[in-house]
Every structure is written in structure tokens, then in C-alpha cells.
């Protein structure tokens, strides 16, 4: 595998009344070609902002994004547009991201038109029908409008539009969060199939730890604008190293009533605000392991084992993994 995208020192700050929202704070990572990298965290942790920074849908306060070795911030106009073909996005609410006055056919055709793909309208329409087939939409629905479709079908429209320019990387921002569980499974299967058929790379952003686990090769856990942990999926779920990861995993309701009385460690306190976040480790006010050093010094994201990064002064080891209560 080779590196498809690299982010270096990405920062995004929004000034607000009474302070600055530190949405993304000095984040660096790489996405390998062909993998699914999961990005998980709770609301306000900066995961969606990070996705938008990568595509330059939002300008970064600092830092660089390299796509296939090219610095996106150095590109302008036509060359930026050309490189952007390779990166597309799928959004959470397929309805809000589809123009209600356009037919499904023209929605999917739009990127083809703006990028002048295909010789004429007839050729583009043929490509659209082919895309509809690939995402499981009947091409007869070409002239229908978004409101005539169910939520799952609308997400298929969004996926077809994202695929139109034959991208290498798709940033999926909570693509199944608004869907019922039976429909969610249909879309997850579709995303897996497309990845196999087209050798796609995904950055999969979600708050749902089960969905991220199912789809991802590696997972990043984010908290208040920073990475807590980055690890191969199996290792992360089997033995989390960062206390926050551990709490998150223990919080997920388990669909097995025989396990309901297990003594799981729950987080106390409220989600802290990304406006003027705490000094030191941003998780320390809620962390039972925190000591003086955690309050003072922000831990760096460092390798505990090859491929396993963790930003914690006191990562969980086999000797201290009992419940901190």
C-alpha cells in the first residue's frame, strides 16, 4: 500500500464570542491507498471539520494536506480542480445535500458536466444510468425528484454523485447515521462492494463505534480536536490504550441482555467544550487516571507499538486495566 493522502499539522480555529473554538488542533496522519480509515468521536470533537479540511471545503488555520504527494494548498484554479476529482464526499443527510428541484439524473450528471466529462449529453446520460445501476438505483428513476425516494435511496443518489468522477478517495461523513438499521446495513454493504470493485479508499467518519468497527482497517479516536489513539481496528477494540477509548467502548449499549449487569466503566461529567479547552491533556478533567502532569503537559501522539499510536501519559497496560472506580 502506498500513501494516498497526508495531513501535516492541521489546525482549524473559529473565533466566537468569548473565545476560540479549537475544532482541530495540530493533527497529522496519513491515509493509505485502498484502506478504510475510521474516524470516531462524540459531537464537537472536530471529526467532521477535519473531513472538510482535507477536501479544502474549509480553509485550514494552519497545516498542509498532500494528496498523491501534491500540496493542495499550493494549487490554484484548474490544477486544484483536477486533483480534487480524486477526492469526493458523502454526507449524513442525503436530503439536505440534494437539490430538491433537480431530477436524480441531473444531480448525478452535474459533476460530469462541470468537469466536462463525456462528449455530449447523451453520453453523459448513459454514464449516469450506469452509475445508478452500480449503486442499486433503477435507471428508470432517472427523471424522478429526491423527495420521491426513501432515505436509503437518497443516500444511494449521493453515493452515485460522489462516484461520477471516478475518485480514489471518498470521505464519508456519517453516511448511515440517519438511516434505520435495516437500511443502514444495505448502504454499508454497498460501500464495501464499491470499495472492492473500484479499489476505493475511505475515510469513514462516524460516532457509531459498531459501524466504524465493521468497516475500518484502522481507527482514529478523536476527542476535543485531538487524536487520542490510532490503531488497527481489531487491536483497538480488543485492547484500547487510551482511557477515553476504553470509556467510549464501554458506553455502547450491548444488544445482549445477559450482559446488562456487567460492571462497565462509565464516563462521569459532561462533554467539555472546544471553546477554550482545558490545558494539558484535554481529557484530564474527566479521566480517573489523571495526575499533575496530565493537567500541565499535553501528551504527544506516540507509538506504543508499531502501528499503534496513543496520546496519553498513562496508557492502559495489562497491569492497570481494572475498572477505575
Amino acid at each position, binding site marked *: 500500500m502506498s500513501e494516498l493522502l497526508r495531513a501535516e499539522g492541521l489546525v482549524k480555529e473559529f473565533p466566537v464570542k468569548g473565545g476560540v473554538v479549537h475544532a482541530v488542533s495540530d493533527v497529522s496522519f496519513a491515509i493509505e491507498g485502498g484502506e478504510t480509515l475510521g474516524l470516531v468521536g462524540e459531537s464537537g470533537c472536530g471529526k467532521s471539520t477535519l473531513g472538510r479540511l482535507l477536501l479544502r471545503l474549509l480553509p485550514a488555520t494552519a497545516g498542509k494536506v498532500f494528496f498523491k504527494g501534491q500540496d493542495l494548498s499550493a494549487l490554484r484554479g484548474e490544477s486544484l480542480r483536477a486533483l480534487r476529482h480524486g477526492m469526493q464526499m458523502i454526507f449524513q443527510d442525503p436530503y439536505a445535500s440534494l437539490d430538491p428541484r433537480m431530477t436524480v439524473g441531473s444531480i448525478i450528471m452535474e459533476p460530469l458536466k462541470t468537469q466536462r466529462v463525456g462528449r455530449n449529453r447523451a453520453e453523459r446520460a448513459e454514464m449516469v444510468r450506469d452509475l445508478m445501476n452500480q449503486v442499486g438505483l433503477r435507471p428508470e428513476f432517472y427523471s424522478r425528484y429526491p423527495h420521491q425516494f426513501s432515505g436509503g435511496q437518497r443516500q444511494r443518489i449521493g453515493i452515485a454523485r460522489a462516484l461520477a468522477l471516478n475518485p480514489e478517495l471518498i470521505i464519508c461523513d456519517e453516511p448511515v447515521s440517519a438511516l434505520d438499521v*435495516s437500511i443502514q*446495513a444495505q448502504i454499508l454493504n454497498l460501500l464495501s462492494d464499491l470499495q472492492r470493485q473500484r479499489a476505493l479508499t475511505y475515510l469513514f467518519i462516524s460516532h457509531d463505534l459498531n459501524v466504524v*468497527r465493521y468497516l475500518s482497517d484502522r481507527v482514529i479516536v478523536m476527542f476535543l480536536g485531538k487524536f487520542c489513539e490510532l490503531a488497527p481496528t481489531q487491536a483497538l477494540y480488543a485492547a484500547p490504550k487510551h482511557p477515553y477509548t476504553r470509556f467510549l467502548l464501554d458506553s455502547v449499549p450491548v*444488544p445482549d*441482555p445477559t450482559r*446488562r449487569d456487567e460492571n462497565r466503566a*462509565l464516563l462521569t461529567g459532561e462533554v467539555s467544550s472546544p471553546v477554550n479547552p482545558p490545558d494539558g491533556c484535554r481529557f484530564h478533567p474527566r479521566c480517573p487516571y489523571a495526575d499533575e502532569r496530565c493537567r500541565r503537559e499535553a501528551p504527544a501522539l506516540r507509538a506504543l507499538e508499531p502501528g499503534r499510536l496513543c496520546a496519553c501519559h498513562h496508557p492502559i497496560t495489562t497491569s492497570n486495566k481494572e475498572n477505575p472506580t
Partner: protein
Amino acid sequence: MNSILEIRGLVTSFATDGRKDRAVAVNGVDIDIPRGAIVGLVGESGCGKSVTALSTLGLLPENGRVDAGSAMFGGQDLLKLKDHELRRIRGNRISMIFQEPMTSLNPIMTIGRQVSESIMLHGGVDKATARARAIEMLEKVGIPEAKRRYDSYPHELSGGLRQRVLIGMAMVMQPDLLIADEPTTALDVSIEAQILRLMRDLQRESGTSILLITHNLGVVAELCDSVCVMYAGEVVERADVFTLFRGCAHPYTRGLMAALPRMAMKGQRLYNIPGSVPNLWSMPAGCRFSPRCEFAKESCRQEKPALADLGDGHLCRCLFPLDDVPQHEGDNP
């Protein structure tokens, strides 16, 4: 019967612009809530689970109407009561919590006053007593610095704290029944876990019966004693929670469980229920799930299955209920 609420044959329909026929959202639903139990009402969007609760409480929107059925609560049929009689029961003997706490709180009144007003309204106590009891309740539901927060407005609290306030308001009158409609759906997972634990602890302490409406099978497994699964306006399966998760019998329930990406690993295919839920105006003949059911036979498309007892109170609306076999996540049933 030692049930706090017995819903029988509930039928609820809605008028819609531009259509003469009404949409039947709930079609003959029976639900029992035993005294002191937590009953889960589970299903996907549009299955009629929330409409069932709103019908029972007389809270349907203007275009909605209860067409048939009864809901016996303490010897009275709630569906036959007048508005002012129902209002006396709601918030006093029956409390409610909804998904989005912000819409249920008054934005221009402090949270403390909202709790103490509901104490004074239903409890007939003076202001000072109500205030003391409100602070006590806010502490109980885990509001930090409850005395100071008494004077906070809803917008000054996080979503998790707002839901705690609503739970406090709902529990302060020690209702016989609490109806909670997706109480944790809008919350982050770490806050959801806290709220579920709070509800469980309060329930154990007070013995209040709870009807918990949710789409999340994980939440059901964490909290409920028994479960009703709804599909297209009907209860399709009902069982105690352990029976249901060990061996559900309705193909729809089995499909829902198999579609959960709980332990499935990358590369494994998730089971998915083909197609989508039927339109309220064009319900399939026979079994309503038959067009999406991979086990459906010809008779399923003609004959409407009854909610039949499979033994031990395990009810299932299917002509060919599935055997009690363990399920493997990620496998097709």
C-alpha cells in the same frame, strides 16, 4: 391482570392533504405493561411506535384520530376520557420524556422553576417546599451543583443535562407510568450510557413502570424486561427480553438483529432486509412483512397471520415462525 396499562385493539389514522383515504398508522395494537416493569417498544421509523404512545395519552396532532381500541389505566379507559381529565393524569400519574429535551422545556423559565411548578401544580405544596423538593430531585438525577443550577435556563445546559432535568420533572411526582420516547437518541454515547443507568436506578428505587420507545436494540437489551416489536403499524412479536434476544421467531425481528454490525468484521457481509417499509396507503395483503420476507410462501401473501402464542407468553405474528436457534451475527438467517 396486574398491568398498569393495557392497550387493546388500538387503531389510529391520519388525514393527509390531497388524499381522501386516511393513513392507518397503528392497526390493532395490543400492549400490556405489567406493574413495575420496563417494556420496550421497538421498531424502525414509521412503524407506529410513537403514534401508539401519543394515542394513549391523547396527544395526537390535529389530523390524527383514534378509530378503535381501549387503553385501560387504573380502571379507566384513557381513550374515552375528556381532555381535562386526561390532563390531570398526564404529568401526574403518567409522565413523559421525549427525544429532544429542548423542545419539551420552556426556554424562558429556569429549570428549577419548571421542576418546582410541576410539583406545585400536581402536589399542592407551598413554594418553599416545592423548591426544596426540586433541588433534591435535580441532585438525584445527577445535576452538578443543583442549588446553583436551579436558576439556569435550559439553553445554558448541555443536551445530557437537559435530558436529566426532564427525567427529574417526570419522576418528581412519582408517576405510576413513565413513557420515554427515544430518550437517549439525540445524545452522545457516553452520555447515553449515563442516562440509561440513571433511568434503571430510578426505576429500581421507585418501582415506576416504564414504556420505553426506541429503535435501538442495544438500549432495549440494557434496560427492558420485555419487548414488543412493531412493523408497519402492528405488533409482530412480543416476548421477555431474554427470550427475544436468544431466539426471536419473527423473520423481521431476526432480520433486525442480524443487520446490526455488532461483532461482524470487515469483509463479512451484513444481513440486510431487502426493500423498504410499505407505504401506509398501500399495505400488502396478507402478512405485511411478506414482500420483504425471504421465508414467505404463497399463503403469507393471502392470509393475515394472528399474533399467536408460541408458549410462555412469547407471541409472534407469523404463519411460519422461525425455530428457536441461536443466531450468528453477520450471517443470513
